[in-house]
C-alpha cells in the first residue's frame, strides 16, 4: 500500500491517502475486513471527492481486476469484473458488432464506476442510465462475504448499489447487456441555436433521435445567453457509409491521441482566451449533416489525454445540475447568468434532455434538463459561486450530480435526494459499522 496524493479528475480537492490495487477477490475481501475505512475507486474520473478515502482510510482501486468472464453473442450479455474499462469493452466487442448500452462522455471509466454513479449518456431519454442495463452484480461486503444481487434478487440492495457511490459493497463483477449496432458510425445533424430557449426547443423536439446534446457557449450573455450547437444523432446503417466503411462497418478508424504534457499556466484559461475559443467553436459549427465515427461522436475529449492539466495545478470543479421541466428554463438561465457575472471562464457547457427516473433511490437523473460545465479553481470566489449555484438549484427543485460534486452540503443534499432514508436502510443492513466511506459521503451525510 502506498502513501500518495489522491484526487479526482478535477484535482480539486487533493488529499494525502493510501491506495491499494488488489489483484484477486481474496485480496479485496482482506482489505474490506481490515481495520481502515475503505473508499472504492475505479479510474478516478469522478471530478471531486467521490473516490477519495477519509483520513486514515484507504482507496481500494479496482483496475487490476479487469477480466472479462463471459460473453453470449446471441444476447450480447457480457459478464466482467468491475475494473474492466468501458474502453476495453468497446475494443473487444465493437468488432463483433456490439456497443455499450449507454455511455458517459469518456470511455476511461470502469464498469464498477459506471454502476456506482449510475452514469448516463446522450441517449438517456431513450436508453435510461447505465444501471438499467445491468442484469446482476457481485459485491464484496464489509463482513467479508460475497453477495449477488440484481433487479429480481435482493432488489433493494441492487438499487441502492446503482448510484450508491460505492458505499454498499465493493463491486467485483457485473453482467451488462450490450447492444447490437449496425456500424461504428453515426448520422449527426448539427443545428445552431441562437438562445437557450431555442436550444431547448430543438432538443425537446428531437426525442425521436437516439442521441441528443447541445454544446452551450457558457460565456455568451444577454440576448445570446445559452446560444448553442445542438447535435442530433442516430446509428448509421451500412447504406449511410462510404464504400470503404461499408466493407468493415464495425472497424475502428485509427486516430491520433495527443497528451497534455504539463500543467498549463494560469493565464491560459483567462476569460478572453476561452471567449475566443467558444466564439470560434460556435462560428465553425454551422447547420450540417455528417457521418461521424464513434470516437469523435461520444468521446471528443478522450482524444487529448490528461486534458485536465489545461486547468493548471490548482485544478477545477465540474458543476452538473438537473432541473425539472417546470422550472428548467428559468433555473438554467439563472445559472448561466451567475457564471457569466462571475467571469468564471468555462469552455463549452453541455445541455441534455433527460428521461424518466429509474428505480435507484440515489440515481441522479429524472425527467428534465441537465447542464454540466467546468469552473477553474479560483479559491474563495469559486466556493462562493458554487454556493450560489446550489442556492439556485434548491429554489428550482433541482439537484446536483454526485459524480461531479466536491462541495455540496449535507442539508442541501438531503433536500435534493428525498429518497435518502430508503437508501440509508440498506446501508445500515449491509454496512452497519460504516467501513465503506469516502470524503464525499462523510461531507454530504451518506455516512457516518
Amino acid at each position, binding site marked *: *500500500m502506498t502513501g*500518495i496524493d489522491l484526487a479526482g479528475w478535477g484535482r480539486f480537492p487533493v488529499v494525502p491517502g493510501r491506495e*491499494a*490495487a488488489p*489483484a*484477486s477477490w*481474496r485480496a479485496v475481501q482482506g482489505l474490506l475486513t481490515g481495520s481502515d475505512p475503505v473508499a472504492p475507486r475505479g479510474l478516478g474520473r469522478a471530478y471531486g471527492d467521490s473516490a477519495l478515502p477519509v483520513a486514515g482510510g484507504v482507496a481500494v482501486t479496482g483496475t487490476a481486476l479487469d*477480466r*472479462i*468472464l463471459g460473453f453470449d453473442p446471441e444476447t450480447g450479455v457480457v459478464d466482467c469484473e468491475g475494473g474492466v474499462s468501458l474502453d476495453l469493452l468497446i475494443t473487444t466487442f465493437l468488432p463483433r458488432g456490439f456497443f455499450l448500452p449507454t455511455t458517459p462522455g469518456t470511455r476511461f471509466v470502469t464498469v464498477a464506476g459506471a454502476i456506482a454513479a449510475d452514469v448516463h449518456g446522450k441517449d438517456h431519454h431513450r436508453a435510461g442510465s447505465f444501471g438499467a442495463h445491468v442484469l446482476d452484480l457481485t459485491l464484496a461486503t464489509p463482513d467479508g462475504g460475497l453477495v449477488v444481487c440484481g433487479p429480481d434478487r435482493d432488489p433493494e440492495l441492487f438499487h441502492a448499489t446503482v448510484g450508491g457511490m460505492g458505499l454498499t459493497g465493493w463491486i467485483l463483477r457485473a453482467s451488462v447487456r450490450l447492444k447490437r449496432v449496425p456500424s461504428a458510425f453515426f448520422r449527426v445533424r448539427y443545428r445552431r441555436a441562437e438562445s437557450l430557449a431555442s436550444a431547448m426547443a430543438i432538443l425537446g423536439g428531437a426525442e425521436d433521435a437516439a442521441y441528443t446534446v447541445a454544446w452551450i457557449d457558457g460565456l455568451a450573455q444577454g440576448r445570446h445567453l445559452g446560444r448553442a450547437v445542438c447535435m442530433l444523432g442516430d446509428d448509421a446503417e451500412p447504406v449511410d457509409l462510404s464504400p470503404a466503411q461499408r466493407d468493415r462497418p464495425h472497424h475502428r478508424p485509427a486516430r491520433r491521441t495527443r497528451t497534455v504534457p504539463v500543467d498549463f499556466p494560469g493565464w491560459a484559461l483567462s476569460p478572453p482566451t476561452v471567449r475566443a475559443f467558444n466564439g470560434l467553436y460556435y462560428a465553425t459549427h454551422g447547420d450540417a449533416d455528417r457521418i461521424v465515427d464513434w470516437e469523435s461522436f461520444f468521446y471528443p475529449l478522450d482524444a487529448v489525454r490528461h486534458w485536465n492539466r489545461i486547468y493548471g495545478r490548482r485544478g477545477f470543479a465540474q458543476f452538473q445540475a438537473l432541473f425539472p421541466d417546470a422550472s428548467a428554463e428559468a433555473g438554467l438561465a439563472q445559472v448561466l447568468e451567475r457564471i457569466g457575472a462571475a467571469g468564471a471562464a468555462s469552455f463549452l457547457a453541455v445541455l441534455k434532455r433527460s428521461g424518466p427516473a429509474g428505480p435507484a433511490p440515489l440515481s441522479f437523473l429524472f425527467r428534465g434538463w441537465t447542464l454540466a460545465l467546468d469552473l477553474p479553481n479560483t479559491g474563495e470566489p469559486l466556493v462562493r459561486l458554487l454556493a450560489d449555484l446550489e442556492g439556485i438549484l434548491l429554489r428550482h427543485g433541482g439537484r446536483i450530480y454526485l459524480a461531479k460534486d466536491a462541495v455540496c452540503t449535507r442539508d442541501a443534499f438531503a433536500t435534493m435526494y428525498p429518497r435518502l432514508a430508503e437508501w440509508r436502510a440498506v446501508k445500515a443492513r449491509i454496512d452497519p459499522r460504516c467501513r465503506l466511506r469516502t470524503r464525499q459521503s462523510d461531507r454530504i451525510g451518506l455516512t457516518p
Partner: protein
Amino acid sequence: MTPAPAPVIILGATSGIARACAERWAERGLPLVLVARDGDELARIGADLRVRRAASVDLIARDPADAAQQGALAEDLRTRVPGGRCTILIAWGMLAPQAQASADPALTAELIRVNFTSVATLGERLAAWLAAGSVLCVIGSVAGDRGRASNYAYGAAKAGLHAWLSGLRHRLFRAGVAVVTIKPGFTATPMTAGMLKVGSPLVSSPDRVARSILRACDRRVDEAYAPWFWWGIMAIIRSLPNALFKRSQL
C-alpha cells in the same frame, strides 16, 4: 497438414508476469495449459483469455509448489503433451521483507522452499519426460545475482535456483531441451505492490517482462535479463568489491 502447435504450460499462472505471458502466447494462437493453486482466480484468468483472445485454455487447479502433489501433476501434464514437446514456464515465487524472515526461521525456510526447492523437485519430474525441441523456462531474479541486506533469503533461494538451472541445462543440452533462466528486474506486480517507485524508469510493466520472456523462449537463449538493461546494472553490482559493497546502500 501442419502438425498441431506444441502447447505452452504455465505453472503459477496467477502471477502478474505469467498472466502477461499467457496473453502474448494466446495472441499467437498457441494452446495453453494453466496451473495455479487458487482455482477461482485461475478460472477468471482462463475465461478472460477465452473471451478476449479466443484462446484454447486448459486449467489445472493444483498447487504446483506442493511437493506432495508434484508427482500427480507431472504425470497429468505428461498425458496432455503427446510426444513430450512443449514450452513450460515456471512462474511462481514468493517475496517477504528480510526483517520478517530474519525474525522468523519458518519464513526463511518457506522462502527457500517456494523459490527454490519446490521448483527443483518439480523440474526433475518434468525433465524426465520433456522431448527434444522443448523449452523449460524458469523465472529467477536479479536478486539472485548478489545477496543484499534487504532480501537475501529470497536472493539466496533464487541464486540456488540459478545454479540448479545451469546444471539442468548442461544435462539436457544433448537431449535437445533448452533450459532458459529469466532474471527480471523490478516489475510492477502484486508481489511488489507498494514497494516500488511509480513512474521510475527502472520499474517495468509485466507486459514488458513478458516480451523478454517470449523472445528468450523463441531463441532458446540460456539466460536473459528482463528487460535486457538489467544485464549492465547487475554486471556493475556483481563486480563491486565486498569492501565497497558492504558499505553501500544498494
